[in-house]
């Protein structure tokens, strides 16, 4: 298995090709089987690879294979090369594992959709691209699949393209990501220009020697790379696309916009840990952006009413935690959170999908309530995921989030820790709010939707249950904190990065864990008070702080701000360029020369009057000029 890493990503590629070319002819069952089967094969291959990797000694857990040369121009060289190390092993497991479950779930969720084959074609393409992204052995290849997953995201968000909002959202996602990729690409160029290579191993080997730690170049490289990460992983300032991306089918939100693709930024930063380590400034930027995003998105989530958007803002917030972790040097914790998050967030989305499915498309939690009686599996699994997300002991989220917060505190990032802790409180609150409004209390379901309200079929609920198990238990691979099986496996990857981010402050692990648990529990308690015991409180709050409420509801008006500051000026400017500059000035001057000659022609033509006298006159003028010149001016 380790000798042929290509076996891991190749299956979804085949699935993509088969479904893409023949999907409409072979029937839904075949399409679904091929799609799920291919991802299943990848999962098996990944597990096999993991097993082989584990069998090796810790320092030999690194396999690199170059499949083929790719771009070569002068001394620029990039290959089709794969790299499997513990970091990518974790990633491929998450991708193929969660991906497989979501594929299966989609069979049920998308059953009625006429574009069923197209859906699975895209989904397979995504899985392939995502696997390649995490397996790439150089930055350029990473960039390639970085954009490829962006493309899949574009296609899947806009899957129901007849809906304008969906098509718009897809486009927005792609373009906002392009802005991030702009930074990524420049970072890659600067990296190559500075080091002459893009292969991870060579870059990391050369960087400490050739780049001055804390110097401008490495800071620029890392910040540019991080700009790319903010795009893909929906951080401030480029997070705006992710909430809109909820226009896509719910499995897509689960797979791409929660579990896998959006974490690519975190993966990239973690992968680049040796570089970031050289740039403390960049690290603190990462930490601060992460922390701010965590709180910022959480506040928005407090008042949203669309179930998927709540989860989406929660995703942004959780991604913020991961960056926070990276920023404080707790890369392993960040990746740990990435992994646990993949499970419980996918579960949250799939649960919401189940709800939406059951309510025939309704997404507004104000029109839900009391659903637990009708769809118990969904409700319980959702609750597990919500609590995991809120960081309640002993669910998966608790372990990983605690580790990040501990890293921040231990690294001496007090302010960042405070942000994270505040975010944790908010998270617990809005997650429980979401759960209560959806599943508890009295039903506010519209009558016709209530009519065929039902629990989802097993093909959907079984993945829910499996995910719930993981969401509950997967945290234990990281127990005890910082020294669990997970850490022993992954930590060597970040060995080089550790040296800088040493523990600056001495804080006890256990007290910190208890503290963060308490914070989360307060959030849970408050949510319960607001939405179960005293349901009139939220309305009062709204009345008392209308401005704050409106600001949160409108997501701080960031979309409007971007529209006014960037989108509109560009659009108007372009129109101006075309109508007021290109046509009249540039083209005008071209046509103007032509017109001038034509006018000259019409004018000169009139000299030719037809009268012999004037011809003679012209003749005489010529005579006088020539003879005068020759006689006098010569």
């Amino acid at each position, binding site marked *: 298995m380790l000798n042929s890493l290509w076996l891991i990503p190749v299956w979804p590629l085949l699935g993509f090709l088969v479904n893409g070319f023949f999907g409409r002819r072979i029937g839904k069952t075949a399409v679904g089987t091929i799609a799920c089967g291919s991802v299943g094969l990848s999962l098996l291959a990944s597990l096999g690879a993991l097993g082989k990797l584990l069998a090796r000694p810790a320092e030999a857990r690194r396999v690199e294979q170059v499949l083929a040369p790719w771009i070569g121009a002068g001394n620029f060289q990039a290959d089709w090369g794969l790299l499997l190390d513990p970091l990518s092993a974790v990633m491929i497991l998450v991708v193929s594992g969660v991906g497989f479950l979501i594929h299966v779930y989609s069979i049920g969720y998308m059953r009625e959709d006429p574009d069923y084959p197209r859906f699975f074609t895209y989904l397979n393409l995504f899985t392939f691209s995502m696997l390649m992204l995490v397996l790439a052995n150089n930055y350029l290849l990473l960039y390639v699949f970085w954009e490829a997953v962006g493309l899949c995201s574009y296609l899947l968000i806009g899957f129901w393209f007849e809906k304008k909002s969906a098509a718009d959202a897809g486009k927005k996602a792609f373009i906002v990501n392009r802005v991030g990729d702009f930074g990524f690409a420049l970072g890659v160029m600067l990296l190559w220009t500075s080091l002459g290579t893009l292969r991870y191993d060579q870059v990391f080997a050369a960087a400490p020697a050739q780049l001055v730690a804390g110097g401008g170049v490495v800071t620029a490289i890392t910040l540019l790379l991080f700009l790319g990460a903010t795009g893909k992983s929906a951080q401030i300032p480029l997070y705006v696309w992710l909430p809109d991306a909820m226009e896509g089918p719910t499995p897509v939100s689960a797979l791409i916009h929660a579990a896998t693709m959006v974490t690519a930024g975190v993966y990239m930063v973690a992968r680049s840990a040796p570089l970031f380590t050289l740039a403390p400034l960049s690290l603190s930027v990462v930490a601060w952006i992460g922390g701010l995003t965590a709180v910022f998105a959480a506040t928005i989530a407090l008042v949203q009413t669309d179930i998927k958007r709540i989860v989406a803002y929660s995703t942004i917030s959780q991604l913020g935690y991961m960056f926070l972790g990276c920023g404080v040097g707790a890369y392993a914790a960040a990746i740990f959170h990435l992994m646990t998050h993949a499970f419980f967030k996918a579960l949250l989305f799939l649960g919401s999908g189940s709800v939406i499915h059951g309510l025939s498309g309704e997404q507004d939690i104000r029109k839900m309530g009391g659903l637990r009686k009708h769809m118990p599996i969904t409700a319980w699994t959702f609750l597990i995921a919500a609590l995991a997300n809120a960081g309640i002991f002993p669910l998966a989220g608790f372990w990983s989030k605690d580790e990040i917060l501990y890293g921040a505190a231990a690294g001496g990032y007090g302010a960042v820790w405070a942000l994270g802790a505040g975010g944790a409180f908010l998270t617990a609150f809005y997650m429980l709010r979401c759960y209560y409004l959806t599943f508890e209390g009295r039903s506010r379901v519209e009558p016709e939707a209530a009519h065929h309200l039902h629990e989802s079929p097993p093909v959907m609920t079984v993945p829910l249950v499996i995910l719930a198990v993981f969401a509950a238990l997967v945290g234990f691979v990281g127990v005890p904190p910082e020294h669990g099986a997970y850490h022993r496996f992954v930590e060597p990857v970040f060995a080089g990065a550790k040296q800088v981010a040493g523990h600056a402050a001495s804080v006890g692990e256990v007290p910190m864990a208890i503290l963060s648990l308490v914070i989360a529990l307060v959030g849970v308690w408050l949510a319960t008070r607001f939405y179960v015991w005293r349901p009139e409180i939220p309305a009062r709050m709204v009345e008392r702080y209308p401005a704050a409420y409106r600001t949160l509801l409108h997501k701080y008006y960031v979309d409007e701000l971007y529209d006014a500051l960037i989108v509109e000026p560009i659009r108007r400017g372009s129109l101006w360029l075309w109508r007021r500059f290109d046509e009249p000035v540039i083209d005008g001057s071209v046509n103007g020369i032509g017109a001038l*000659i034509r006018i000259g022609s019409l004018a000169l033509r009139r000299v*030719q009057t037809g009268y012999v006298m004037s011809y003679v006159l012209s*003749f005489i003028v*010529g*005579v006088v000029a020539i003879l005068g010149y020759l*006689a006098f001016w*010569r």
Partner: protein
Amino acid sequence: MPSSLPQISWGAMLPMLLVAGAGILILILDPLTPPARRDRLAALALVGIVAAAVALWVRRGRPEVVFGGMLAADAFALFFNLLFLLVAGLTLLISLPYVRRVGMDHGGYYALLLFSTLGMMIMASSLDLMTIFLGLETLSISLYILAGFLREQLKSNESALKYLLLGAFASGFLLYGIALVYGATGSINLKRVAEAIASGKVANPLLLTIGMGLLIIGFGFKVAAVPFHMWTPDVYEGAPTSVTAFMIAGTKAAAFAAFLRILMTALPVLQPDWSRVLWVLAVLTMTVGNVVAIAQSNIKRMLAYSSIAHAGYILVALVAANKLGSGSILFYLTAYTFMNLGAFAVVVALARQDGERVIIDDYAGLGLKYPFLGAAMALFMFSLAGIPPTGGFMGKFYIFSAAIQANYIGLAIVGVLNSVISVFYYLRITVVMYMGQGEAESRPAGLSPALGLAVLIAILGTLQLGLFPSRFLEVALRSVGALLL
């Protein structure tokens, strides 16, 4: 003063005698020929032309000076005489269907065509200002008559009168110039004039300079240089189409032949002076000719302005005053002959049954309807515009090469920009022919074999000069070797 009768070399004279003889014979036979058989007279004229060409050809490579130094049968004369015979021959082919249609198929027409050809031949062969003047007048007087040959048509009358008045007026200046040069140098023989100037024996330099200026004016009129060009459009528009074709190609070539011979043989020492004057004339001529041509709607008039512009290009080569420049004039005039006569042949061929088609818009849609004539016309227009791979391009290429070689880069730039302007009106013909919507009624007069032959010769000539210009350029360069002593 002992003098002897000059030696007369009949062999060297034979071509001119054949042309003159054929003309006189036609005049004699004309009353004896029934109107229906008048094409026999044309055949006779053609025979005369071909015979003259053969007579010229067999004497190639044997330069000779005859009539006591007044005429030369050198390579330069040979080249131009053959060119004039080509012009005359093609004109005859074009004339055959045309003159019958417009009712001017008299013997006189053919005879005058031959006489004016004779005048051209004399001009190109002259080594003496007097013979040049005589050739010029022989040519001009015949053309005055030819221009007015459509006696019933006022336009033709007007054309002839304008041509005559202005031509005679210009002749006066030319003559005055000859007189002053004669007075200043004591001779009318080109070589002796040159010798006199070179040896510094000129009594009054001002007289010489003014004489040179007047010569430039006189020839400026003949080649239609701005501002002496005003007659050209009117005369070319009003004259019968076949005559216009003949004038546009023949007169210009003859005038440039004599002009070139005078400047290079008699006045090389004054080159800085005349180059400066001609520089201005060239710029004016190119620009005015091209710019005004844009606004024309009559194809004959447009081609008249175009001929003015082409005179400007050739003046550029004169300005350069080097071997390549002189050679390029010969080359250019040949290409010019092919493309202009070809274009006129197409104009004649596309005439309607009931009359000529001279308004450009009347050609709408004909290009695709008559593929051969359309393609031919397009080729001639592209060639006139100087777009490769045609003779017109190669001609311009040589001319501008000569100018750049002589370091007249500004002039070359003006020239090439002018050729861009010219593209506009040449392309307009193709635009109308290929991209316009034609009316259905127009049935053309049909393509007679003679016309077809003329078009074909013109096409082959244009392409030959464009694709394989090498040999021809060598011939042209060798021919001008005779001038540069």
